[in-house]
């Protein structure tokens, strides 16, 4: 059943520029190319890594695939040590690093079986990441 799920972002700064930055955007998450709300989530999960190896967080084969999907990925590095990060990779392309406390929200095109979302922790110490997929 279609649900009403809203994702809102604000980006604020009073001193990044001489003009105050105050960005606010809200969207209702819908299926691809339609106005019907998304229907599915994997739920909010946590993963604790214990090596500096690359881990598959979302396996492309585990979700309905194709470019016509509206998958959204939420990630958050729950660590507090500023130097600890997770490198986020889509397929074999590095997207960027999530340092302690950072979060990200982005679409995911699992266009084929290799288009996994992967994470690589910065050290082999215990690192914890929160994650969720929202989809149609």
């Amino acid at each position, binding site marked *: 059943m279609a649900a009403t799920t*809203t994702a809102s972002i604000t980006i604020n700064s009073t001193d*990044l520029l001489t003009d105050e930055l105050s960005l606010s955007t809200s969207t209702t998450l819908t299926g691809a190319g339609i106005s019907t709300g998304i229907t599915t989530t994997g739920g909010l999960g946590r993963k604790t890594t214990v090596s500096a190896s690359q881990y598959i967080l979302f396996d492309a084969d585990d979700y309905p695939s194709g470019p016509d999907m509206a998958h959204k990925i939420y990630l958050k590095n729950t660590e507090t040590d500023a130097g600890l990060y997770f490198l986020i990779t889509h397929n074999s392309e590095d997207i960027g690093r999530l340092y302690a406390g950072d979060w*990200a*929200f982005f679409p995911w095109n699992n266009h084929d079986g290799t288009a996994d979302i992967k994470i690589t922790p910065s050290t082999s110490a215990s690192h914890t990441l929160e994650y969720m997929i929202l989809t149609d």
Partner: protein
Amino acid sequence: MATTTASLTITSADLVGDALSLSSTKELHKAGTTTGLEQTTGMTTLHLTATTQLDIFPVLPATPAGQNKQAWVYICNKATDETFYITVSIAATNIGRLYAGDYLFMPYSQIAQKADIEITPNASAASTGIDVEYTMIHEGLTYPTSGD
């Protein structure tokens, strides 16, 4: 040092049996530090009328100044027609589609030459025209020289 804060709230009363109410807030810092980011490309609005794939930030050179420094990218599809979308890519990797009203906020490591962020409108969006907003808040970015 500037203080820039990014917050996300995801809510739903009916997606799952338990109401979803997630909030995350974080100051944007330089890589591995607690020092705030100080540079931004500023907010840009484009009106796109072709399906051409575009680099929305300066093309990365062989050794990007911001390589593995921290940068945050915000992109928003401002269309209201739900069939209008843009495809977001890094280099040759198709990250995903932003449908009407959708946005992304993600880190960007500027990891290598040609690992540029690109957007491509779909045909129906391009034929009508589609507005896209984007910005980057970062600690390093290489701009082309006057000879480029």
